[in-house]
Structure formats: structure tokens, C-alpha cells
């Protein structure tokens, strides 16, 4: 795998991090010489409140976190912890109540719907838990969808990149198939190819292995890690599976709408230990860590 195909990552903003980690560990492999990778996307004092008055639910509560460029980060937390809300806000799919989201040097909270849509199209990739693909398009059409939406032609360089991705993801024989003719794992691989095609600043993955058997799940996680290690891609993944989180370079723990932990070079065991600690804390002070 040759890095020459990967465009330089934008890193215009200062790289000061604002991790409130509880267990800062050594930087992961492949980061910048300064020790901390430049941030691809940052959440600044981010809050999200659903509903009003009595029914108001604070899904995210003044969260501050940055995600390093070229890093594979997993966001973990119990269901209702706010991890999905965080992902939606980071990806520009939803707007925060207060606070800012900065992608590279772009403040997403300043953009209107159209600008946000164009930004997603060009600079963000998505892999969802299910329903990643349009049922009426073939695998190839689904992979090329971002270009189609942008009205861009498939030039020679893009075609070469497409071929390379298809090769890495093992989809060469499946390109003319409709999603209904693909297995769950194959569908997820098509989604990864689509997410990587535009070489986005960040790929967001939301429980990408949630609907897969463990073998297909491992395959998908391997591919995501490969895209980071070998293609220099930035990946932010939400999961509640500590084994899946262990594939990442770093794990950010979310609880009760706040960043509750930051773990580098995770293993399934260390992740589980942190989760257990969080659960313990919630049980001892149920008022601050109620399960929503």
C-alpha cells in the first residue's frame, strides 16, 4: 500500500488537544513527531438538549474532545450515554444546542443545511450499523454514489483508486450485485469502500459490526484498521463492544453526556475494566449517572 495516493490531511488549526483523559498512555504508532496527532475533528464545549421544560433531556453535557488525524478512535458508552449524539454532531448530521464542532479548520456550527450537506459529501464518510446501501443500486453504483451526487465524472485517477479499494476490500466479484444479493459482511465492505472513495477527512462508523456475525465483524474491523494504518485514514467509530473497541488506537469513554475516560492502545481487558469502573461509579451515585 502506497501512501502517495492519500492527499495531505488538512491540519491548519493548532494541534493543542483538550483530552480530559484519565489514563493518558503513549501515543499510538504513526502519529506526528510531536507526540500528539493533529486533530481532524474537535468538539468544543458541546451540549445537546432534546425537548423542552419537564421533558428536556440533556444528551450531551459540555463535552470537549479532539480526534487525531490518521487515528482510529472508538467512542464507547452504555446505551443512552450520549455517544451516538456525539457522533451525529461530529458528523454534521445534527446541530448542537451550544458549543462548536470543528472539522479541520471548518466550524460546522456556522454552516447552513446546504453547506453542511456539501461538506458531508466531500469531507466525511459514513459506515452505519445497517441500511448502508441503496437497494436499487448495484454494489459499484453504491460505492460511486458520493461522486454521482456531486455530479463528478469518474476520472482515471479515481478509477485507479476505486480499483485499489475494491481489491483491498475483496469486492471485485460482487460489483454488479444488488445489496439484496450480498451478505451482511459484504454489504458493510461496500459501505467502507464508499466511505473511503472520496478520501474524506474523517470516516464515522456507527456500530459497524452490530448486525454481523463475529467473523464478518472482525473482518470489517480489520479493514477499518487497515484503512488507518496503510491509507492514513481517520476513523471515528461508535461501539458498545469492548472487543471491537480494542481494534482502535484510542478509546474515548462517554457517560451521562460527558467524556468519562480516554484510553490509548486499548485491549479488550483494559476497555472492559474501564467500563466496569464506570458502571460501578454510576451505581454508587445513581443521581449523576442515571441510565437514560
Amino acid at each position, binding site marked *: 500500500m502506497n501512501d502517495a495516493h492519500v492527499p495531505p490531511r488538512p491540519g491548519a488549526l493548532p494541534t493543542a488537544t483538550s483530552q480530559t483523559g484519565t489514563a493518558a498512555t503513549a501515543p499510538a504508532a504513526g502519529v506526528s513527531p510531536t507526540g500528539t496527532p493533529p486533530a481532524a475533528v474537535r468538539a468544543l464545549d458541546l451540549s445537546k438538549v432534546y425537548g423542552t421544560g419537564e421533558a428536556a433531556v440533556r444528551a450531551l453535557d459540555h463535552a470537549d474532545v479532539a480526534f487525531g488525524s490518521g487515528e482510529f478512535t472508538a467512542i464507547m458508552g452504555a446505551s443512552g450515554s450520549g455517544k451516538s449524539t456525539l457522533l*451525529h454532531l461530529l*458528523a454534521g448530521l*445534527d446541530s448542537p444546542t451550544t458549543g462548536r464542532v470543528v472539522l479541520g479548520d471548518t466550524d460546522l456550527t456556522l454552516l447552513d443545511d446546504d453547506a453542511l450537506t456539501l461538506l458531508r459529501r466531500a469531507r466525511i464518510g459514513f459506515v452505519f450499523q445497517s*441500511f448502508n446501501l441503496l*437497494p436499487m443500486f448495484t454494489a459499484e453504483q453504491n460505492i460511486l454514489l*458520493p461522486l*454521482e*451526487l456531486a455530479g463528478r465524472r469518474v476520472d482515471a485517477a479515481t478509477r485507479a483508486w476505486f480499483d485499489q479499494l475494491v481489491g483491498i476490500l475483496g469486492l471485485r466479484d460482487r460489483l454488479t450485485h444488488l445489496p439484496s444479493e450480498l451478505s451482511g459482511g459484504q454489504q458493510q465492505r461496500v459501505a467502507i469502500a464508499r466511505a473511503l472513495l472520496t478520501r474524506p477527512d474523517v470516516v464515522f462508523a456507527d456500530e459497524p459490526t452490530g448486525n454481523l456475525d463475529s467473523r464478518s465483524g472482525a473482518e470489517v474491523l480489520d479493514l477499518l484498521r487497515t484503512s488507518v494504518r496503510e491509507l492514513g485514514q481517520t476513523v471515528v467509530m461508535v461501539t458498545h463492544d469492548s472487543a471491537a473497541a480494542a481494534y482502535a488506537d484510542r478509546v474515548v469513554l462517554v457517560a451521562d453526556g460527558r467524556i468519562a475516560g480516554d484510553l490509548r492502545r486499548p485491549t479488550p481487558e483494559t476497555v472492559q475494566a474501564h467500563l466496569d469502573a464506570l458502571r460501578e461509579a454510576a451505581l454508587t451515585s445513581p443521581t449523576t449517572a442515571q441510565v437514560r
Partner: protein
Amino acid sequence: MWRLTVAQMRRSIARLVAVGIAIALGTGFVTATFVTTSTIEQTALAAARAGVGDPDLVVQPPTYETLDDTQIAAIEGIDGVAAVQPVGSSWRDVTAGGLTSAVAFSPVSPDERLGQVTLLEGAAPAGTGEIALPASVASRFGVGVGDDVTILASTWTGDADTVRPSQQLVVSGLTSDGSGLGFGMPLGLASRDLLKAWQVEDDWSSWQGATLVLAPGADPATVEAAIVAAVPDVTLMSGEDFARNQAAQFTGGVSVFRGLILAFAAVALAVAGIVIANTFTVLVAQRTRTLALLRCVGATPRQVRRSVRLEALVLGIIASIAGILLGLGLGQAVLSILRAVNDGVPLPAAVPVDGWTILVPLVAGVLVTVISASGAARLATRVAPLAALRPVDAPAAEGRTGRRATPRVVTGWVLTIGGVAAMVGAMAWSRANPGGAFELALLLGVLGGIVTLIGVVLAAITIVPAAIRLLGRAAGALGGPAQRLAATNSVRNPGRTTSTATALIVGVSLVTMMATGATTARVQLTQMLDEQLAVDVTVTAPTGTTLTADTIAGIQGVDGVVDSLVLDGTNAEVTSDSGTISAAVWRVAEPGSLGSVVRTADDGWPREYAAFADGWVVPKDGSITLGDASEVPTGLLGGLPDFTVLLDSEAWGHTGLTADTSAIWLALAPDANPVAVSQAIEDVVSRTVDAGAPAPIVAGGAVERAGYTQIIDTLLIVVVGLLGVAVVIALIGVANTLALSVVERRRENALLRALGLTRGQLRWALATEGVLLALVGALVGIVLGLAFGWIGSSLLLGVAGASVPLVVPWSTIGAVVLVALVSGVLASVLPARGAVRVPPVVALAS
């Protein structure tokens, strides 16, 4: 089940309202038809009543016979008869202020219960010095009560050069227009004495009947017996019976008219049926999980089916009632406007409502709804209880099917081919036997058309998706990603797409068929009328007189007259192979300019003949003898006024005839209103000819021709308007289908939005989908309609084996395509609003 059905309906309220509108339009149409025809019948009856007054008895002579003054006097003399009003009128030309008008005068009634005519102003005329004029005539003349007018006798008392008898009369009153037995014909009033004098003058004294009132206390039976004894063979009936008879004669055609419009209403309801079937199928599909859950907790398939049927029944009843109210409201609104505009016509104040007006649309609307929904009801019973346990999954694409040779499709194609064969056969047959078995060929053609339409509807699943794919590819190539997305989306659900377009195909094909037929008939009729009425307007001086230079200059100066040809000549005996007849013989000084006013002679003096004559004079090209000239080579020129011979100057010289009469033939501008121009010419003639002098006669084909083409155009507008209701209903179906697609593709659209589809692109994609759907329906309908229209008109109009030109009604086709385009976009507006509101986050929900 009731509560469940209501709950289900409440959840699908938007969808049901849209279908309800389709049903309501259909039933409203039926109601409006009944209301209109009932109003016509009532108005006719009211007019007939007004015309006959309120007599105790109406006396009618046997058919083709009349009553004379002696018989009227005999009836008047019978004991117990209080007053008798003879029925009838005399025509007189009335002139004032240089204008002339023919007016029919009825006798003043001796009893107010026998009045036929309403006085608006002034008093009824008394004696022989007064008359009452219709208000419209008086206002045209600019005269009022107390002014003088001149009455001209209808005949000349001596030779042509003597003056027409005239008398000066005072206007005693003004009568209203439009009442009386003439149904709108203006009637003036004159005293019995004056009318008697006129009848002596005309050497004619007879009445079409009489009305009478009995003296108080008289025994009707005795009086009737006395009348029959005095005047044998007369028929006696009450005033009410007489009015009903009169009205029935007038409205005999109304029931045919009602049947015809109801046929169009049936088309509209059938189209509504397709839309209903479509919508209910999708409603059931959307409720699969609910239905499955019901089945899980113990609902039987019968209960599920009954729930869907009940829903259709409730919808049908509510929508039909709404439609009936709509029809009544519309009828009432039109009636109120008409009442405000028409003074004299006895229109009812409120629309007449009888049992049929309510019952027929209600039953038709409910039946169509329930029957159309029955397929969906059956579908609902097939939902397996297990479906409730399956996770909500992405809607699977139907794949690339739609070409399967199901029995339905095979039947459809067999019917289509059979129907086309029948139509072609009918055409070939009528070509081979011109004139023979016309009805049979027409019947076969109509049958073939209906079978073809049914066939196409059945086989549409193989036509519509293919057409959309083709059109979609073009749209995709021309447009951006939104168009390509729409092209793919619009064929994803071939079944639904097809039935949506089918509703449109039915409506559009019928509209196009009628337009094609009418346009063809119009072209054909224009050709025919050109041949029969080749001269637009002729102004002929009475025999023995000539047109003055003033008259000619005035006529030539009338707006709308583009060409004129002045002729002089005389009446002469003309002998040809077929005998001797009297004809108007005209000298044409400049033969080359004949073509400018005679349509059939568009090359000028068309052939090498010295004379031309119409078909009454010479049955075919030949020769004639007239005056001193014999064996004049004569051509037959169609469309000349009857009994006309045209001679060139040389031939005229040989005849030795003396010209004592002149005429002017005129060609009107194609865009001129012939009625207005003719009226203007008549006014010029009245102004330039002394009152009392014999007036030149204004005649010609322009008015008649305009009348015919106007009838066709009016009929076309009415029919297209009626069928247009079916098209509107079909377009509601398009909007419905789009809205359902948006609901189904909620997650999909959210995914696209997450991946970078802008709101504008999403709106455009839906608009394109709507346009594709509407356009394909319209195009297939246009092709079918053109074929039907051509075959139908060649069967109907090519009776004599004449070839019928294939006319394309471009304006109608253009309008249909435009409507399809615009409504395709409009149909997407509301669904698109819902679609863009779905946040992209929905795509992530598991």
C-alpha cells in the same frame, strides 16, 4: 373491528383524503349532470307554462290543420266560456331610425290568465294605431314608449317597382324577451283588430290553436262537449298538460344528452377506481406489521378483510356525499350566475334535487370504492402472523422484473392485438364496401377500440416501466444526479408505477381521441362547406333594381370584408340537358378575379368555359342555352348560390339580355366574426337604401359555416372539459404515489442526505419522478388516442369511401403534455416537503 378501522383510517388520513378527492370529483360529476339536465327540463316546463299562461282549457286542431276566425268566434260564443285567446302570430318588418328588424306579433290577450307575453313597460296596444315591441328590438332602434315606428307589409302588392305598403304606428309598450312558447324568440303584441287586418293583407287567417278561461260557475264537462260539437276534431287538454307536452317535445333530447355525459362520468369513476385500488394496496402494504400483529393476537383473515372493506365503505360514503354536495354547490353557483345574467328565462331559484340526483352518485361512488379496494382486502388476508416478528428491514428492491409473461400480461397483449385487428378490419371493410354496412363497421371499430384499451391497461406493466426507463435514461443523460436517481427510483415499483400511469392513460387517450375526431371532422366539414357555401356573403338587389354606389362603397368599407366582386345581370330562363329553369344570370366583367370571392374557383376563372353554373342548373359540365345564345359551354362550379349562372362578358353579349339587377359578392377575412360582419353589412344596406324601398337581400355561407364550426368547437370544449375531470383524478393518483414513495423511502432518503444529497437535489429528484410518471402516462395515452381518433373518424366520416386526412390536434396534445409536465412537478411539491424534513440522522437509526 369498528374501532380498529377508525384508528387505522385516522393514521392514514392524508392518503385517504387524497383518494377521497378522486371519488368526490367523480360523484360530483354525476350529481352535476343530474342537476343540469333536471334544470333544463324544469326551465323548459316553466317556459312552456309561461307561454301558455294559466288557461282552463287549450284547444288544438288536428296535426297540420289550423283554426280560422269563424271557429274562434264559435268557441267564443259558447255558454260558459269567459274569454278566448287565439294562439299564433304574424311577422312584420319593423323599421325605425334607418334600421329594420323582423318581429312576430301575437294578439293581446283578453284575460290576464291567458297572457303569453310579459309587458315590461307601458301598456298593451289598443286599436289599430298601436303596437308593443320587444324591448331588445326597441333598444336596437333607439325608440321608447310613445315613439313612432314604421311597419312594412311582408308582400308587395304589385310589380317590383311599386312601393311596399307601410303604416306608422305608436309604440304603446315594451315586452320582455325570451318568454313564451318560442323559448327566447322575441314576441311583440298587436291588437286582435290589427292582426286581423294584417291577416287580410297577407291573405292568410288561421291560428295554431286557442286557449280559454271559463266563466265562474261554468261546468267544464258541458263546455268541453259544446266545443267539440262546435269545432269537430279538436283536442282539448288542461293548460298544465299542454305545457308538459310542449316541454317534453323540447327536452326529448335531454335524456340522450344525460346518457352521454354519464358515460363520461363513468370514465372518470373508472379512473378513480384505478387510483383507489392503487392506494389501498399500498395502505395494506404499509400496515403489514400492524396486520401481522393483529393476526398474532387472534384476528381471523376474515376479520382483517372485513376491516379493509369497512374502511373502503366509510371512505366511499363520506367522499360520495362530499362529491354530491360539491356537484349541488357547483350547479347552484352556475344557476345563480345564469339567473343574474338572463332576465327573461324562467330559471328556478334553487337546483332541482330528486331521488336520482342523490342516489345514483352515492351508489356509484360507494360501489366503485368498495370494489376497487377488494383486491387490497384480499391482499391483507395474506399477511402472515410471522411478519410481526421480523425486524423492520430496508425495503428490498423488486429487482429487475416486470417482463414476466403473467396470464394478465398475455391476456392484455392478446386483447390489444385482437382489438387493433378489429379496428383495422373495420376500416378495410368500410373501404371495400363504401356506403354498405356502415353501422356494422362502426360497431366493430368501437368494439375494437374498447378491447384495445382494456388490453393496453392489462399489458401496461410491460409498456409503462419500459417507457419510463427510456425517458428516464434521456432525463438522466440531460440532467444531473437528481434526475438519474429519479430515473432509477421511478421504475423500482413497476406495479404501482404502472397502475398510476394507467389511470392517466385512460383519461388522456379519451381526451386525445375526442380532440383528434373533432379536429378531423372540422377539417372535413370546412372542405365540405367550402364546396357547398363557396361565397362568404352576397348582397343582391331585388329584381329590377340595382345597388347604389353608396351601398357598394359602404359594404366594401365594412371592417372584415377583404375582397368584393360587383356583378350585374338579370333573371332568365336557362335550358340545359336536365330541363329549363329560371336562374339568376350574372355577367362577370373580370373573370380572373372570380377566385377572390368564390372559394371553389381559387384559380380565378378556372377552366376554359364561357359560363359556370351551380348544380341546380347543370348536373355536370356541359352546355346551356339562354337568351339568344345557344350551346354555351358551361362548367359545373360547386358552392355557388342556388340557381346561379355566371357568364364572361363575351358570352353575355351573345345572349342579348339586358342587365337590370346588380349584386356584390364578398370574401371575409378568415379571422373576422361572420355574424358581426353580416350585421354590419345589413346596417349599411338599411342606411343607404330608402325606407320603404325594396331592400337588397344579404345572404351567403359565412354565417352558416361559422355556425357549424362553432358547434364542433363548443362540443369539443365541453367533451374535453368533461374528460378532463378523469385526467385530474389520475393526476391526484400521481401525487398519491409520490407521497407513498416518500414514506417508504424515508430511511433511504435520509441515507442519501447523510451522504451529501442536498435538499434541492432531493426536491428535484421527486419532481423528475413525478414528471416521468405523468409524461409517460400522457404519451402512451396520446398515441392510443391518436389511433382511436383516426380510425374512428375515418369510419364515421369516410362513409362515401372518401379518404379522411390524418389530422393531429397539436394544440390539445401540447396542452396535455404541458399539463402532464406541470402537474408532475406540482404533484411532487407536497411529498417533497415531507421528504426534506426527514433529518439525515434517521439513516443511522437501527
